[in-house]
């Protein structure tokens, strides 16, 4: 490089431009700068981050298993059992703890030391009298309104609502991410193939997209869930994802149709870049912003769908705590069980609202047509 003779005037000019113009932020930097200017969108983003933290640290917020315990000379982390059952060390089962830690720890190893979650309540079972020193048994039936020990009340069966909602956050967020991840993958791949390859591939794929769009979503979801016989929460996510990709596919197809004749694609084709590489390394990054917007809205509607399914009694199977299932428990007599309507209802509403606000912020930040004006 240094051997090429350079016109000194040109170097000077380049130098001047470099010094005068600030470094380009790039598309996403610019989008983030615009996004940050929208207070509602930022609040929504903060709220989703908060929810994520709650979901991750749920076992450390509400639970009946200690976060960390020094027992018979070893350290254990039984609270991880809430995340995945196998992660709860079998020693506590062998020592016949029967899920009641406080008394058994003291009885079986007086030297033991434990770090407890701030709220001693379980999302899966009713806490009984004096399980935790001085804490009464959870009330059941219509007597379970919010009180000192059950911040958001209990269900008819006496299971704490706060604990269920904290642990249910994990389900709600996972449903949003996993199902939209599936939907986005299917939608982007099919849309890209249809838009880039065109011809009979486009013809076939477009008919297929139309076919799925015309089948009533609820028929599809209910039938698929019924076919699965014993659906887990992961099945529900897969079903929501497998039925929610058509909008994304159509949008991706339209973007690819627009971009495939632009010079940089033609140039890449001329150089002999493979088709897959052109589709996913060259075109996709340029089409990503408009695709991301419906994906965000899709997360909101996936959360809504999951809670609606749980509410209808076809959602996640019983042990999984879910916001929608709490609401379902209030059906028939909402006034007497008002805490089962208000708190889970607010949680669903706020999560959906947050994702919708983020989607709108994203749209305004990345769509050049919406810039300026105000």
């Amino acid at each position, binding site marked *: 490089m240094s051997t090429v003779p350079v016109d000194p005037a040109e170097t000077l000019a380049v130098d001047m431009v470099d010094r005068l113009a600030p470094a380009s932020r790039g598309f996403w930097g610019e989008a983030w700068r615009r996004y940050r200017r929208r207070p509602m969108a930022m609040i929504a983003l903060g709220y989703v981050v908060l929810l994520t933290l709650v979901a991750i640290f749920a076992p450390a917020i509400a639970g009946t298993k200690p976060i960390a315990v020094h027992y018979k000379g070893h350290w254990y982390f039984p609270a991880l059992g809430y995340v995945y059952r196998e992660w709860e060390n079998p020693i506590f089962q062998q020592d016949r703890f029967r899920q009641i830690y406080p008394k058994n720890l003291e009885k079986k190893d007086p030297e033991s030391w434990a770090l407890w979650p701030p709220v001693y309540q379980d999302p899966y079972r009713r806490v009984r009298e004096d399980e935790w020193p001085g804490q009464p048994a959870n009330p059941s039936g219509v007597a379970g309104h919010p009180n000192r020990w059950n911040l958001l009340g209990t269900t008819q069966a006496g299971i704490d609502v706060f604990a269920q909602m904290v642990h249910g956050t994990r389900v709600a967020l996972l449903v949003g991410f996993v199902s939209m991840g599936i939907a986005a993958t299917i939608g982007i791949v099919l849309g890209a193939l249809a838009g880039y390859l065109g011809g009979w591939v486009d013809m076939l794929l477009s008919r297929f997209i139309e076919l799925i769009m015309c*089948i*009533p979503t609820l028929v599809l979801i209910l039938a698929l869930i019924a076919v699965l016989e014993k659906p887990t929460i992961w099945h529900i996510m897969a079903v929501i994802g497998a039925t929610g990709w058509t909008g994304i596919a159509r949008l991706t197809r339209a973007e690819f149709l627009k971009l495939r004749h632009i010079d940089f694609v033609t140039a890449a084709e001329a150089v002999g870049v493979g088709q897959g590489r052109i589709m996913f390394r060259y075109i996709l990054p340029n089409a990503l912003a408009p695709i991301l917007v419906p994906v965000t809205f899709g997360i909101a509607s996936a959360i809504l769908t999951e809670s609606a399914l749980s509410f209808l009694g076809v959602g996640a199977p019983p042990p999984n705590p879910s916001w929608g299932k709490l609401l379902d428990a209030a059906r028939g007599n909402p006034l007497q069980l008002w805490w089962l309507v208000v708190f889970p209802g607010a949680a669903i509403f706020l999560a959906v609202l947050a994702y919708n606000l983020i989607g709108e912020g994203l749209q305004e930040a990345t769509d050049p047509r919406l810039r300026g004006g105000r």
Partner: protein
Amino acid sequence: MLTYIVRRVLIGSVTLLLITVVVYALIRHMPGTPLTAAMTEMDPSKKLNPEDYERMRRAYGLDKPWYSAYFVWLGNVLRFDLGQSFAHKQPVTRVIGERLGPTLALSVSSLVLMYLLSIPLGLYSTARSGAPDERAISLLLYMLYSFPTFVAALLLQMTFAQYFDLLPLYHMHDDLEVYQQLSPAGKTWDLFKHALLPTACETYGGLAYYSRFIRANMMEVIRQDYVRTARAKGVGEARVVLVHAFRNTLIPLVTMVGLTLPSLLGGSVIIERIFVWPGIGNLFFDSITARDYPVIMCLTLVFSLLTLAGTLLADVLYAVVDPRVSYS
């Protein structure tokens, strides 16, 4: 235009055929049959004996593999025979016909309300764009748009039906004995009271969506030169908004009518279930749990037909109201 419509109808019928194949295959793969589903609800001692079970299986065509049963079903449909409901022991058309009225009562009134309220709301917020009251309305509409219907339904039941005891909690009318002794005016009043909450639930989401839609379109139009010209020559603000601007946003609004067609009959499963409303949505949910194949198939056929017809109608209307669009 005509060739376009003919082509779309032909493609649409192929799509429709494929939809019925997919749905038929799906529901036949759901575990259990209408016979076993009905049996589990009855007490177990009344179990069908194996010979009866076998006889009924043959009578209903459940012994055939799904694809041959599908062709039997298709042949019957082409001869305008939609079959008998397993659960109701009546022709499917009659079962669905009975549920049509209640669902239409809800969906038509909510659709009318939606248009009646969203147009003035949208126009008002355009005219007052940026003012504090407009900001408040926009925020409220945005929140309503994200508000889950089932939460809204429970909250409405809590306040109006239980706390203030003004309206009934659910059902379409009072107990049948009481209801039948009412005068026609009394019956109407009774139905009205029962329909109020479900209609409100079905309306508010769409209302928020449409008002925002109208406002977004209006904001685009209001910046145009001809609107500025109208203002410059001294046309009053009301006339500018209504006559000059609004008329030009009618195009997307008209095409939306076509897209609402399926929701008109589809009803809302969730709302009908919460309010125990004897409509299509409830029927649909029950038929899936009861494995009532003929009813599910007929409803799927109707929904898909309406969806296809709705999109076609939207596209045709688009060409009718906008002379710049042509499909030739």
